[in-house]
């Protein structure tokens, strides 16, 4: 939410956004399940210009043993940006932003994993942002959810995330970079789609309670669209594997 250049219009006279989208339109999203060989589960997502890989290892025994939880699995999420994924090279290693995102994404995903069925175990979730545009935490969480399913981790549902926000006074879906920089509010939301439980919710900017309701509804609508793409990606991988086994 930087200061907007005065002549910058983010919504034109036809109600179109700076990248030509309608207010409730998502950027193009492509999802592929299982692209990696070593990981127990993996997913590659392209969401607008974001390119993100997620990999899951586990469940495996928590080591050292004194860190085991006797009643449930420990879920570790690590969100990382490749140093070349942003305009100005980022120093490798976690910064404060990626530590916070790792925390909120990990907490959101933990809710949906049947951790109580996997005592003393650890599940490691790795999210690598290879090319970054706005909305990496939503895209990364969405990919991580597919990777968890691909790894066969028992889950109550497949979480999914999408952001909504406010741009030039208008509530819009899935902010792009310019909208994120110069808009009035950005609100990433993750849900468990089956019961519409809210798993992740952050907001910065300025929303009236009415705008918040509108934005939340829009974000959930976006989540539901992406949720279908997640399931198609998993199905496609499943069909391929069955096909291979039947050869």
């Amino acid at each position, binding site marked *: *939410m*930087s200061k907007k250049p005065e002549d910058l219009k983010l919504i034109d006279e036809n109600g179109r956004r700076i990248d030509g989208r309608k207010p409730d339109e998502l950027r193009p999203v492509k999802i592929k399940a299982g692209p990696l060989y070593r990981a127990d589960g993996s997913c590659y997502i392209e969401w607008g210009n974001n390119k993100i890989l997620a990999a899951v290892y586990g469940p495996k025994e928590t080591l050292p043993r004194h860190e085991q*939880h*006797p*009643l449930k699995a420990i*879920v570790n999420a690590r969100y990382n940006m490749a140093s070349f994924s942003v305009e100005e090279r980022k120093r490798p290693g976690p910064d*404060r*932003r990626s*530590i*916070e995102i*790792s*925390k*909120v994404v990990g*907490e*959101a995903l*933990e*809710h949906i994993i049947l951790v109580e069925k996997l005592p003393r175990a650890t599940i490691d979730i790795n999210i690598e942002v290879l090319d970054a545009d706005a909305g990496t935490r939503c895209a990364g969480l969405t990919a991580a959810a597919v990777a968890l399913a691909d790894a066969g981790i028992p889950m109550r549902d497949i979480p999914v995330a999408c952001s909504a926000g406010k741009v030039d006074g208008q509530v819009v879906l899935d902010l792009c970079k310019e909208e994120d920089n110069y808009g009035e509010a950005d*609100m990433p939301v993750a849900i*468990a789609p089956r019961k*519409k*439980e*809210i*798993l*992740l*919710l*952050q*907001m*910065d*900017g*300025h*929303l*009236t*309670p009415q705008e*918040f*309701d509108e934005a*939340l509804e829009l974000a*959930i609508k976006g989540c539901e669209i992406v949720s279908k793409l997640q399931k198609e990606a998993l199905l496609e991988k499943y069909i391929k594997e069955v096909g291979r086994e039947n050869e």
Partner: protein
Amino acid sequence: MSESVVSEIKRKYMHKLAQANKRIDGRSFNEYRPLRIETGIIKKAEGSAKVELGNTKILVGIKLEQGEPYPDTPDSGVLTTNAELIPMASPEFEAGPPDENAIELARVVDRGIRETEVIDLEKLCIEPGEKVWIVFIDIHVLDYDGNLFDASSLAAIAALLTAKVPNERFDMGEDEPLPIKNDPPISCTFVKYGGVIAVDPCLEEEIIAEARLTVATDKDGNIRAMQKGLSGSFTIDEVRKIIKAAVDNGARIRKILNESTGRENGKEN
């Protein structure tokens, strides 16, 4: 935090209390703990405030130093927020660089102040592109009994509202008040456990909490920031109810803040 060490017995007891519509410290679910704000207590700091929220005690100190602006905002001062969960405050806190809890705390407090433009950073430019004031907000948690988000945010804001620009220390004339631009947002935190939602959780509630939601609102009742935490979920209706309660509590807290920082009439610098 340290969930695994709390006995299941305690959790069950608190769930039972919740079913009977009671909290472990006797408060109602929409009742904030007694709040006390004291400012100007650290002589060496440019601004300072101590917040006591129940047994939770936070000290925030503001220091201003001079440095280079960021290349993309050459005309603006720089704001940087740091939180230290020092071992003094809790047996669970360990010495060392900030962990993910301290980082989340610092970033949430920082965003609340930054996005609302509480400080007028453009007035903190000394020489465009060369030299600006850097405002350091340092959150020192002294005694931890829950709800660090609200207490830290309030202490940071109270310290900023009463801080000065230390011109004298840099041979630049007389000290002046730190330029304030917008009315600060008031942060209000809720947790969910055993089917109930409680405002301003004490430590025992935080330990068993399933989900947490912090909502910062402005004096017009609009939402300025939200941060959901922990691995539980909220329904849409729960979020709406929380926002409503955050607006109500926010008004009461804002009154205490204004009184303790000499902004009783709500007038801004």
